[in-house]
């Protein structure tokens, strides 16, 4: 194995989620162990690492500790780097349509223009129209209708034009 080959191996391990690589061929053997940087806090307080845990739905059992229910959805959703996110600018209840029987403002697959209303957030009995701050094709609507959202929570994922 040449030094350059070893160097490439090191880079591959480094850029991966692999903790350890071992390779042997005939007489030759190589082992690379990636440095752990495990954030200690994330171990002691396992579920608090996500910067913006999703708000717990209000009808869940009141005594259930947040750790159990929070953050998991956010963590599970591996964000596609090519997509743009439209986030909630305020805390409240998200509605996809202007009225219970009305058609939703937007559907998956549709095109959204910058400034176009994509939904409503109700807070303090006020209905706040939420405009898109990007333009593109809607790939995912990340919250259900009438679901509580917190500040910074992703509402829509959009593939930019």
């Amino acid at each position: 194995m040449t030094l350059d080959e070893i160097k490439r191996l090191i880079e591959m391990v480094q850029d991966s989620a692999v903790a350890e690589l071992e390779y042997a061929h005939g007489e030759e053997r190589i082992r690379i162990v990636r440095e752990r940087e495990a954030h200690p806090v994330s171990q002691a307080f396992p579920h608090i690492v996500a910067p913006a845990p999703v708000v717990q739905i209000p009808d869940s059992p009141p005594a259930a500790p947040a750790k159990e229910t929070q953050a998991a959805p956010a963590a599970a959703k591996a964000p596609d780097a090519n997509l743009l996110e439209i986030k909630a600018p305020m805390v409240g209840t998200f509605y996809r349509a202007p009225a219970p029987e009305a058609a939703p403002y937007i559907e998956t697959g549709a095109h959204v223009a910058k400034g176009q209303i994509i939904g409503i957030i109700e807070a303090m009995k006020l209905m706040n129209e939420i405009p898109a701050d990007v333009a593109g094709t809607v790939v995912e609507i990340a919250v259900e209708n009438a679901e509580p959202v917190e500040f910074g929570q992703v509402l829509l994922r959009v593939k930019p034009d």
Partner: protein
Amino acid sequence: MFSKILVANRGEVALRIVRACRELNIATVAVYSEADASSLHVRFADEAVCIGPPDARQSYLDPARIIAAAEVTGAEAIHPGYGFLAENARFADICAECGFVFIGPTGDMIRMMGDKAVAKKTMADAGVPVVPGSDGPLKSAEQALALAKDHGYPVMLKAVAGGGGKGIRIVTSPEGLVRAYDLARNEAETAFKLGDLYLEKFVDHARHVEIQILGDSEGNVVHLGERDCTVQRRRQKLIEESPSPAVTRDLRDRMASAAVAGAASVGYRNAGTIEFLLAPDQQFYFMEMNTRVQVEHPVTEMVTGTDIVKEQIRIAAGLPLSFRQEDIILQGHAIECRINAEDVAHDFRPTPGRITEWHVPGGIGVRIDTHAYAHYAVPPYYDSMLAKLIVHAPTRAEAIVRMKRALGEFFVEGVPTTIPFHSRVMSDSVFQNGHYDMGYVEDFFTRTEI
């Protein structure tokens, strides 16, 4: 009793409230800014809602966001802690209008006590001694000069809308008074959007001694003795103790009776603190009333065996106080040191950053209230308090050595803290003998080297 309370605060006091709720079997909702996602108050609450960016004006100080979070989580009551919206009368009103119980007094009560001139007059009417000075806002510099002549210099000019030591000027001569009058008006206009000033006699070598009271909806008002908060730097409290080394049993009775009378005269409900200036001749004067729980409430809890935050919640739920005045017996002595992320050697400069090592003291008579932990990043957006270290012992002398012992076990790496400062104060003979006044910290740094 409530089944769910939203805690409209951050840091150690948010955690303090979460703890009280947990012990009362009440579910909790933490709110937090993006800067506080990994704070312990978020971790230990049952639910947590991100309400905005780090800037407090767009998170902890925004009533709309707090109310919206209460709405989506179905909370019944809101505890404001101290600071932020705790003494915001409008927020208390909004809570009531939106159907949430504000855990504190009514908006009108907060408004009355928030206007320093009205508060002073109210207390004076109830027979509480007040500092001699102007009867309401000053009308002119001439009126200020005349009053100062009557009471003698030095005098203070205070912004009616000020608080927490802000908007105060001490003047020692008629010339200074004339100059300061316009300056202070302009400052107050800028800072508080209200230029009104009042004048008070400046009490030299005074101590800051405050009485904790609790009033319930049945009209009971009970006091929990005094706290001595004289050790301040630029009017920020650093060390508090209970009882005060300057207060005799007779003086305590007189101060507490005045405080209870003042609170009862306005039908005060929930926790409140009457702050007094205590002069060397044992005369005391009403300064202001804080209509919320204080940072330093644990020293009172330790000497009285009460839980002030639980009582706040009980009172807000319409329950009577869980004790009467005769049940309150002061036991031993408690001291609190505020452990701030500050560089004492550089003028107590705040030092946000990541805590790399964190070991808290333990053992007999030691209490720690903190939202910090190993690897916690102290955000630069809020106040610099990391922890409150409180000790309790049978006597003041024992409490001081216990505090010294506990400070010696407290290890923080990554950010400078006030721990070394407190250790030196505990070893200082002036603090030890208890004969200190509000010039103590300045004097301490003059006497000793950093």
